[in-house]
């Protein structure tokens, strides 16, 4: 009987990194496990009805994290409606009521967090900055999931030469450190927001491909898939109706961690001055500017840094908790 082989899939986009152990149990092992009823029935005995258990098992921390993420999404989408001054406007007339300058000290009645080195409202820039980060974060991962996921499910189900070719293809992209690849494509494509979404999707798809491929391999050896094959279902039907619903939860879970990594990747590009060009505020270019003015005013660094951390941490936590609860496989990070 073949032993289940342990394979490690590392995810490292940008500067954060997430790693998970993904096992590919051989079919014999799985069936044996199911026959002896070692996994599912035992859990069924001890766990209360599935839906309530799920809510409870996620814990209150999870819901706090969801709320914080939701707040950021709300802030980013409502930035235009909120009572915030124009993020790129600098009042240069000293007698105007909203005149405010970084070198003049804090606080100001009309500017909650003060202004930056050229007199622009910091709070407004942080909120508008979240737009770029969030749009790029969710947009690029959504693209990566569609592309990488489609290839992954095909690769994992058909195996054979398609799998080999797609794996080599993915490995080529994984052979570049993420920021280096992103920089090269920035030079190739350009730096508009759409370009950046595309670039981070190109960097991220191999990881999502691997995740979806691994879970497809696992599920395609289950009995109901074998039964469908024996009944003569077309592969396209099996992929669509049986495997797709199975792999979506883990794909979304990894996708959430991916969003955090994509936000970091966008931040890294902004930090080195290769993301959406100024004066558009992004968390990354604000942090870079803050690090340049560090001896004069710490708020310029701290505010965008805290903003970014307060989005990445909760979304990482949400992804991590969901994986722990949804995935019975062992995920280490």
């Amino acid at each position: 009987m073949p032993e289940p082989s342990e394979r490690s899939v590392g995810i490292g986009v940008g500067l954060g990194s997430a790693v998970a152990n993904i096992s590919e149990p051989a079919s014999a092992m799985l069936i044996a496990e199911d026959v002896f009823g070692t996994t599912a029935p035992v859990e069924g005995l001890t766990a209360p009805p599935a839906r309530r258990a799920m809510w409870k098992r996620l814990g209150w921390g999870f819901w706090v994290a969801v709320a914080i993420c939701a707040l950021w999404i709300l802030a980013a989408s409502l930035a235009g409606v909120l009572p915030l001054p124009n993020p790129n406007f600098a009042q240069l007339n000293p007698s105007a009521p909203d005149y405010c300058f970084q070198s003049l000290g804090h606080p100001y009645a009309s500017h909650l967090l003060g202004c930056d080195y050229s007199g622009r409202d910091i709070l407004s820039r942080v909120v508008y900055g979240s737009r770029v980060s969030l749009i790029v974060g969710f947009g690029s991962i959504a693209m990566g999931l569609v592309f990488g996921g489609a290839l992954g499910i095909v690769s994992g189900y058909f195996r054979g030469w398609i799998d080999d070719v797609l794996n080599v293809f993915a490995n080529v992209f994984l052979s570049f450190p993420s920021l280096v690849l992103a920089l090269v494509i920035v030079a190739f494509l350009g730096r508009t927001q759409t370009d950046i979404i595309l670039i981070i999707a190109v960097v991220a798809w191999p990881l999502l491909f691997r995740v979806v491929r691994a879970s497809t391999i696992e599920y395609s050896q289950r009995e109901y898939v074998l039964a469908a094959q024996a009944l003569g279902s077309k592969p396209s039907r099996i992929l669509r109706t049986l495997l797709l619903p199975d792999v979506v939860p883990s794909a979304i879970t990894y996708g959430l961690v991916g969003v955090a990594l994509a936000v970091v990747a966008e931040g890294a590009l902004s930090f080195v001055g290769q993301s959406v060009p100024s004066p558009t505020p992004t968390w990354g270019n604000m942090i870079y500017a803050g690090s340049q003015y560090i001896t004069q005013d710490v708020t310029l660094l701290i505010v965008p840094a805290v903003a970014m951390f307060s989005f990445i941490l909760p979304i990482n936590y949400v992804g991590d908790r969901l994986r722990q609860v949804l995935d019975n496989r062992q995920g280490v990070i």
Partner: protein
Amino acid sequence: MVHLVRLRRLLEVLVTLFLVTLVTYFLTSKLPGNEGSVICGSAPPSCVTHEDAILYLNHPFFARYFHWLGDLLTGNLGNSLTPPIPITTLIKQTYGVTLELIVYSQVMALIAAVPLAMWSAVRANGLFDKSATALTFATLSLPAFIVGPVLVLLFTISKPFSLFPGVAHSLPPLWSDPATNLYVMFLPSLTLAIGSIAVYQRLLRADMIATLEEDFIVMARAKGLSTSRILFRHALRPSTFTMLTVGGVQVGTLITGAVIVEITFGLTGLGSTLIHAVGSKDLPTVQAITIIVAVAFIVINRVIDLLYAVIDPRVRRARAV
């Protein structure tokens, strides 16, 4: 059978390497800034066509690619555009800083992560374990471009703790003045190490908890060995398996981090040279650095694959069959 597997792996690596050069060349040969015009600046158009001819720019894509690949394989990387010096010289001047940064940070990360992980594993789910796990989870959400400036703020600028030299302090070579060099490189390396500490602590802790439940550990306890001896001599080696694998994948993250750290601390390494080259559309330099970094990454991962045999005797025996 084993030979076949090895042959297949070697073939895969070669195909990957070939495709990596192709992708790099494809992406960088289409840079919006034309090489000829970057060199010539405002010089007359005849200069541009002359430079283009020298750089093979008027040939079809694959002709240019194989010409470039041939040059690459014979170690001729050409000249950078601004300033026009051989890229090999440029790389020789800069790779040391990046390499030192990565090695230094990994030494730091292991020194910190191994004891942390051991103590967490010994008292799994205890107070120390829980706080260490929470702390490492938080640091995983802190990218280097936040950690770097904050460390600069805390340890070079704020008065009571200004223990380290500030940004862009001159860096003496490691071999002539190791003490000053390591002192100047401390904060940059620490910036890079913080993320690794978190990754290693989590992986080693998980594997360590599993190892500590094995029979041979029970046996060692029964023999009356001290806890530290059990941990370091018996439990550590079999627990490092996942950490080593991930260490290989981490190299990519570390190179990315090194780029950021070099920019943050004003160090002249491969990363800051790459950023400079992308900024000034210096295409040959971008190509060269990207290729070198990618090849180094692939080779390191292969070497780590081979290192399994050293760490785990079971793998050695399996390969010997």
